[in-house]
């Protein structure tokens, strides 16, 4: 099993007025290809910050992040955009769909920003929507979809470019229990189809769906249930 994600002594500080907040302190993590990892911790533990860094949205104050052997933050801004486009997909707690685009158009968004455009982006978007079970709702606007459906659209959008890594920030936080289970099941399905999934949550029950749990507290790793699926 090869290592997909390597986080090496990552620190992240924020300035808040005249105080310095340490969001992450000396975090080291290794994630292999095909793993299903949950990152848990209370509010303020730095899990969202870690996710931002893994998603190339934020830069660490120091430390290294290797994705698939590539030293991410040594790359140009252009390359970072490309990684966000092709190698990584993100799902958010509040779905973050564009409200004035249809489900299909939302899913097609990452295809729009490909360096080498697809011949038929609409067909690909449609196929992925069907994969997540929303073939019948592709021309609906987000406002016409339920929470669960919107999250499915968000997931479809995250995987439409065939990324290596799927990051999910509290993906079920805004959903009721049964919908939550359905979404988690979908994520599990995707992971089994060889996607690497990293799920951030403060809910222990949600974390249980993953094979491996990494615990964060106050910006540091305080527990790691290990690799290859042992609880």
């Amino acid at each position, binding site marked *: 099993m090869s290592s997909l994600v390597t986080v090496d002594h990552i620190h992240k500080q924020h300035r808040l007025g005249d105080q310095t907040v340490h969001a992450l302190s000396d975090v080291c993590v290794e994630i292999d290809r095909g793993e299903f990892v949950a990152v848990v911790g209370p*509010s303020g533990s730095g899990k*969202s910050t870690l996710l*931002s860094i893994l*998603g190339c*949205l*934020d830069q660490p104050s120091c430390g290294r992040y290797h994705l698939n052997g590539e030293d991410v933050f040594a790359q140009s*801004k*252009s390359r970072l*955009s*490309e990684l*966000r*486009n*092709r190698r990584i997909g*993100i799902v*958010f*707690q*509040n779905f*973050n769909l*564009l409200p*004035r*685009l249809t489900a299909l158009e939302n899913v097609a*968004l*990452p295809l*729009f*920003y*490909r360096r080498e*455009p697809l011949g038929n982006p609409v067909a690909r978007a449609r196929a992925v929507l069907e994969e997540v079970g929303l073939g019948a709702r592709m021309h609906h606007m987000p406002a016409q979809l339920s929470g669960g459906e919107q999250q499915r659209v968000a997931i479809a*959008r995250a995987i439409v*470019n065939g990324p290596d890594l799927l990051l999910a*920030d*509290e993906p079920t936080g805004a959903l009721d229990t049964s919908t939550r289970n359905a979404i988690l099941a979908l994520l599990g399905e995707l992971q089994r189809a060889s996607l690497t999934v990293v799920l951030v949550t403060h809910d222990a029950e949600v974390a249980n769906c993953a094979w491996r749990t990494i615990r964060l507290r106050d910006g540091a790793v305080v527990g790691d249930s290990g690799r290859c699926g042992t609880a």
Partner: protein
Amino acid sequence: MRSFSYVHLAFRSIRAHILRSILAVTGIVIGIAAVVIVVALAEGARAEISRQINSLGSNLLLVQPGAQLAQGVRQQAGTVLSLTTADARAIVREVPDIVIAAPFVGEQKTTIAGDLNWSTLVAGVTPDFFEARGWRIAEGQLLNDDHVASAAKVAVIGRAVARELFKGSDPLGRFLRIERSSYLVIGVLAEKGQDFTGRNQDDVMFIPLSSARIFTIGRSQVNPDAVHTILVKTESAQSMQAAESAIARVLRRRHKIAGGKADDFRIQNLIQVAQTHDRAYRQFTLLVSTLAGISLLVGGIGVMNIMLVSVTERINEIGIRLAFGARPQDIRRQFLLEAVLLCTIGGLLGLIVGYACARVVPSALGWPIEFNERMALIAIASSGLIGIVFGLLPAERAARLDPAALLRSG
């Protein structure tokens, strides 16, 4: 394919916030509409003046004696009139490229027909005068050489005189009286309208030059061969300049004016008169276009402000796009295109509004207007340019947003 998608995206965004988009471009719409209306009016006026000047005749030089002479007003007895019929003949003979040199005497007189009377310009002319001035006959015939040779008491009248003195009935064959002389109407001229000084050209009565001298306008004791004006028509517009100098030479020689002394005549080049008017109108058009252009700038500032607000409101959207692979230049391009599209649409709307207003209002008031495709292109192009200039700042703001800050979900 990519650029088309951006345009499509821009359209969608504009449509998505339609009310705000309309408000944003109001300034541009008004600015462009104002320019269109003003330029249409100015161009219309210019074209009308041009037409009026041209209706006087083409390639014309007006040679007049140097003494003050208002059109048609009789000189005080005893004033020397330095231009003569012989001068006219000499001009034709000696100056190259002259088609016609037609002498003219004229005076405002009261004409009477039956129990109606009308004060008009009575002009004594030779037959080639009509050709020089481009007068066409509508009914009957023009004056000919026989009429002049025999000092016949015949008249060719303009439409206005025909209307005033003969109302609805046919003037041909009827008689007009001027003081003690009776003239037979042998022709009615086709309408010409106003000239560029505002005078109604159709308010005129032409009689043979000889008849005018003998019976009606009279002649100076001092210089019986004198005329009020010589109308000179050249071969072409290009030969007018040379003809002017040649005529001056001929006249100075004939009038025995020594070198260094002033001319006792003046020559007016009607084409130059027309060009002067034309230039004046063009300058006016430029001035008002500039003023209206300033309102376009104001419109641009309006667009910029609205777009800045829009960027702030769409922070989430921008963050999402960045999170899924948009580069800063993609965001910049998106917002810049939106600004350009918005302003161009505004320009088009302004063109339509301006066109509609310029059609309706002036025609109600009787003002001439003229439209110009080049104007339309400039309007659209400048609105687009405004879009680029004033869209830069919002686009740059959008492109600089930091994706991490945008998407913290806590």
